[in-house]
């Protein structure tokens, strides 16, 4: 109870100081406000961007290993000339992999090609066509909004069927139910059996919204799926409970066997996984975070000095009042707590204004560009913590000096 009454009194003192010396207090608070704004704005932007990138990476397949010609690692010693001569993944290798291992849940061949697709007089130029083998639904999470996904038999026999993304559906059919309609692809009529639910934009261009998925057995009748132009890959998912490292080890041995490599030969394939990219992007965002942290640290430092200054002035102005309080029996710690609370409240007000600016800024920025900025609760906690910390550190010495004042001298100073 006592603490609450002390807090209430301190808050009213702080607000009174704000009201009486509006310009001076506002200018002092500006340092904290700008500091908190700078730090939290950078953290909000970096966190939002990181969340988006990670989300896009996860949509590639978090538990999936990609068998490809080129590895996803980059660096100055990237021996591209070695990788260039590697063979490309083939459709028949997926069957071989499934036959050789009992630990694989799905091995799916994927190839991408750009193609103009037609429906009557409408067309979508350079739509992304994904030719996939059996089991794509096991390695990639998606929802089918209208219709259904392929039956295994349709994929195996290479039926002229397709599942379209919602973006393609909107472009060709204006949001109407497209099931049963026929697209024209490679001069062939291809029946639409399903439409994917909207996924939203992906930073890596792998959103199903603008894709047309067809069985690989169908596509290979019209295009060569074993060329670099279609970026062929095999997506492998292990059975429940199998670790990514174990799956990689098994795939390594199996693919060396399939490719008839001798014990001393280098691997002629790359086993890529999303965690590789996640780790690399994590490092990049760390650099951004550190840059924001350095900029904000200086702003906060300057803000802290401003608050310390205003608190010293406040103590000086109220020396007489402190003397009277002490003469009436106020303890040293009461005076200390009173000024310390005032300093903390002032800093929290400054920090809250900074956070409010970030919040408003994030809403405006989200509306202006097609990207969602989110002020997370952890950043709000961080902003308020920093404000309170600055309040304690910059307000303690002035508050302590006030608490040590001699009551007689203090009262005399006001005469």
């Amino acid at each position, binding site marked *: 109870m006592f603490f609450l009454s002390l807090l209430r009194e301190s808050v009213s003192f702080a607000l009174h100081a704000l009201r009486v010396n509006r310009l001076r207090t506002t200018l002092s608070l500006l340092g904290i406000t700008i500091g908190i704004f700078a730090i939290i704005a950078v953290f909000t932007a970096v966190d939002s961007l990181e969340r988006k990138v990670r989300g896009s990476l996860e949509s590639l397949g978090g538990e999936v290993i990609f068998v490809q010609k080129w590895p996803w690692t980059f660096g100055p010693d990237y021996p591209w000339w070695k990788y260039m001569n590697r063979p490309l993944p083939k459709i028949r290798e997926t069957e071989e992999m499934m036959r050789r291992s009992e630990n694989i849940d799905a091995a799916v061949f994927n190839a991408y090609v750009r193609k103009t697709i037609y429906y009557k007089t409408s067309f979508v130029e350079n739509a992304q066509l994904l030719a996939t083998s059996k089991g794509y639904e096991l390695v990639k999470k998606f929802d089918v909004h209208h219709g259904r996904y392929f039956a295994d038999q349709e994929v195996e026999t290479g039926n002229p069927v397709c599942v379209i993304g919602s973006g393609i559906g909107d472009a060709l059919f204006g949001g109407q139910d497209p099931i049963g309609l026929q697209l024209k692809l490679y001069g062939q009529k291809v029946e639409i059996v399903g439409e994917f639910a909207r996924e939203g934009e992906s930073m890596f261009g792998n959103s199903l919204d603008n894709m047309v998925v067809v069985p690989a057995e169908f596509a290979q009748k019209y295009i060569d799926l074993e060329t670099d132009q279609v970026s062929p890959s095999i997506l492998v998912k292990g059975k429940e409970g199998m670790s990514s490292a174990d799956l990689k080890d098994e795939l390594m041995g199996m693919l060396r066997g399939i490719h008839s490599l001798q014990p001393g030969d280098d691997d002629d394939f790359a086993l890529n996984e999303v965690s590789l990219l996640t780790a690399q992007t994590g490092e990049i965002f760390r650099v951004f*975070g550190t840059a924001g942290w350095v900029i904000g640290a200086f702003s906060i430092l300057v803000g802290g000095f401003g608050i310390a200054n205003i608190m010293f002035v406040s103590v000086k102005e109220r020396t007489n009042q402190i003397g009277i309080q002490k003469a009436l029996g106020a303890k040293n710690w009461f005076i200390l707590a009173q000024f310390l609370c005032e300093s903390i409240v002032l800093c929290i007000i400054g920090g809250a204004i900074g956070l409010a600016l970030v919040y408003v800024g994030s809403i405006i920025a989200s509306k202006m560009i097609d990207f969602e900025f989110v002020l997370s*609760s952890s950043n709000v906690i961080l902003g308020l913590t920093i404000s309170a910390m600055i309040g*304690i550190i910059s307000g303690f010495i002035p508050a302590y000096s006030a608490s040590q004042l001699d009551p007689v001298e203090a009262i005399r100073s006001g005469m």
Partner: protein
Amino acid sequence: MGYITYTRPTIITVLAVIGFILVLFSMPSVFSPDTRDLGDYYPALFGLLISFRFIAYVGIWHFKRWGVELFLYTYFANVVIGILLDSLSPIGVIYRFVELVVLAIYYRKMDRNL
């Protein structure tokens, strides 16, 4: 009955000055990416700990017992949090322990009032 007052020994002045500098430098680490990675509430805990450490050094500078006591609490809090979050710096712990030993030597001579 008057109090016997002691002037602040040089070693305490040195410790306090080093302490203030260390607090100043550890302030930005509250919101560093490394600290944030430890958990959502860790910056808040760490910030509170640094603030109390600063207050402890103010007390030590004024040659007050409460400064040493607060320093002791922050020392143990730091060790406990460090162990829980596996972020304990052995050099920091040893340095602060040495500080604690020096402060303990002068504790009886310090002022017991606020």
